[in-house]
């Protein structure tokens, strides 16, 4: 066989093997999502979404569980967004190029790699015990905010860096201060990227179990009426139902999983679509 022929054969063989690998990865993703929809979608009725659980969670709906997760995510947003966006502004607009800035960046990437269970331990030690917030909605939201912070900082900085320098220069040339330039020119232009990226980060927080395990959740709790109450949450509910329920109710388990994944996906898709629509509107 000639060298050229052999090279061509290797080419198609290698391409085939790697194509199959990609197909396997994509196939796994589609199969898992399909299976989840197949098992979970039939349980999702209006009653399931709007009613409280009955008969030891084997009947009725998961309304308080959904609301618990919604409250947790809103609380997380309330803490993580202001600090994260300001930190992103700092890194993009103000930070000098020096060792400290390099350290801050290193800290951010490393925060993203800290295991979620370690955030759980930290949240328990600081928020639940030292700050005496108890096992509560607010302690869970603060813990999740720490976990979400690196995402918000990174997406804010990236969104701000996409804004051309000329816009800042034009604003400064008109006599605006740096802060005013950020507030009136740079931030509005970067808003779609910041909002969408933050939503992606928050939706990850919605699915986290380990950080709220000892900081916020209970398997059964009434709807929280204050930030200091314990709450139910979708991921924790799913974990208990799947592993420790005395009387397992498969349709509730799969329905809960489907609601969690579908909720997260729908929010992600809306956010991503909105961002690309906004980006098309502005051309630099």
């Amino acid at each position, binding site marked *: 066989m000639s060298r050229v022929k052999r*090279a061509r054969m290797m080419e198609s063989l290698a391409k085939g093997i790697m194509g199959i690998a990609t197909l396997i990865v994509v196939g796994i993703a589609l199969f*898992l999502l399909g299976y989840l929809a197949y098992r979970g979608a039939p349980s999702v009725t209006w009653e399931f979404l709007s009613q409280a659980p009955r008969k030891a969670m084997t009947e009725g709906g998961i309304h308080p569980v959904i609301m618990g997760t919604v409250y947790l995510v809103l609380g997380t947003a309330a803490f993580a967004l202001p600090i994260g966006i300001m930190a992103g*502004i700092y890194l993009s607009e103000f930070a000098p190029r020096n060792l400290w800035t390099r350290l801050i960046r290193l800290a951010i990437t*490393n925060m993203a790699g800290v295991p979620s269970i370690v955030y759980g*331990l930290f949240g328990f030690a600081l928020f639940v015990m030292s700050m005496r917030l108890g096992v509560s909605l607010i302690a869970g939201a603060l813990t999740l905010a*720490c976990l979400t912070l690196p995402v918000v900082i990174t997406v804010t900085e990236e969104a701000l860096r996409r804004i051309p320098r000329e816009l800042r220069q034009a604003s400064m040339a008109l006599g605006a201060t740096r802060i005013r330039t950020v507030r009136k020119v740079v931030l509005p232009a970067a808003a779609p990227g910041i909002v969408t990226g933050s939503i992606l980060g928050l939706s990850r927080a919605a699915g986290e179990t380990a950080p709220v395990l*000892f900081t916020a959740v209970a398997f059964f709790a009434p709807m929280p009426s204050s930030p200091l109450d314990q709450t139910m949450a979708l991921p924790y509910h799913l974990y208990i139902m799947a592993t420790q329920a005395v009387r397992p109710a498969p349709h509730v388990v799969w329905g809960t999983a489907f609601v*969690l*994944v579908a909720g997260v996906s729908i929010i992600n898709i809306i956010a991503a679509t909105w961002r690309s629509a906004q980006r098309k509107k502005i051309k630099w």
Partner: protein
Amino acid sequence: MSIGSLIDSRDRSGRAAIRRTAEAVASGLIHASGWAAILILAAIASFLLLNASRALGEVGLLTMLTGDSWYPTSDNEQFGFVPMMAGTAWVTIVALLTAVPLGVASAVYISEFATGRVKEISKSIIEFMAAIPSVVYGLLGIALLVPAVKDILGLDTGLTAFTAGVVVGIMVLPTIVSISEDALHAVPDALRQGSAALGNTRWQTVLKVVLPAASSGIFAATMLGMGRAIGETMVVLMLAGNAGIIPGDPFVSVRTMPGTIAAEMGEVVRGGLHYSILFATGLVLFAVTFAINLAADLVLERQRKRWGR
């Protein structure tokens, strides 16, 4: 000058003063927020250390790291980390064996061979995998993989390090694919064109030029995947079986470090020795993942400098 315009100009300078103060406050807040990441990371380390101090004092780090039995609640309590470190190691090895070959091959295909819609669609589907919560992966593992592992391999239980490792591997696939793909993408096209001009096929170019140039990034992707696999909690808690033996192979139930913390934290006496031991476990987990992520970050940074991107 009329009195009216005098008042007007006084008013204007008053507003300017308010604006200056507001800007100073905003600027101060922005600068302070810049430090948030370092502050939180330092707080995590200090609070873990503070709560682990009793364990470190009474039992000692070396005794914990080398102790080979974990009986936290018996009368003669023993807090050896070896069983759960070995369990975590097996899960991580299986996860990387699952994720690295598949992930790197997919990244090469997506970056070097796929075009147009195929590229876009496979990228978004793989990214979508990252949005599935770990507890859902755990549930899917219980439903699909646990019975399969039990029946096909003829084991007593499907809750093994292997089962958990495969599912953790699937979970870290998106990380490995996207970071490897970034590394491949960062290799300048001039190198590919040069190789093609010398008469190499695409595959020869990939194998001899692109992959070596991107190797440090792919290595970093593997490290980051490893860090995530070591710290993954819910999947191992639900699938690894949580048995206390020191495993010699991955086809047995194992205890893992994150799983142990998650399972036992709810039942310990707050402030007791067992409680402190769990914080020490968290501290070890934190130190190990921190070292791995730091190394990966340094490798990625070096690569960025090399290609100027």
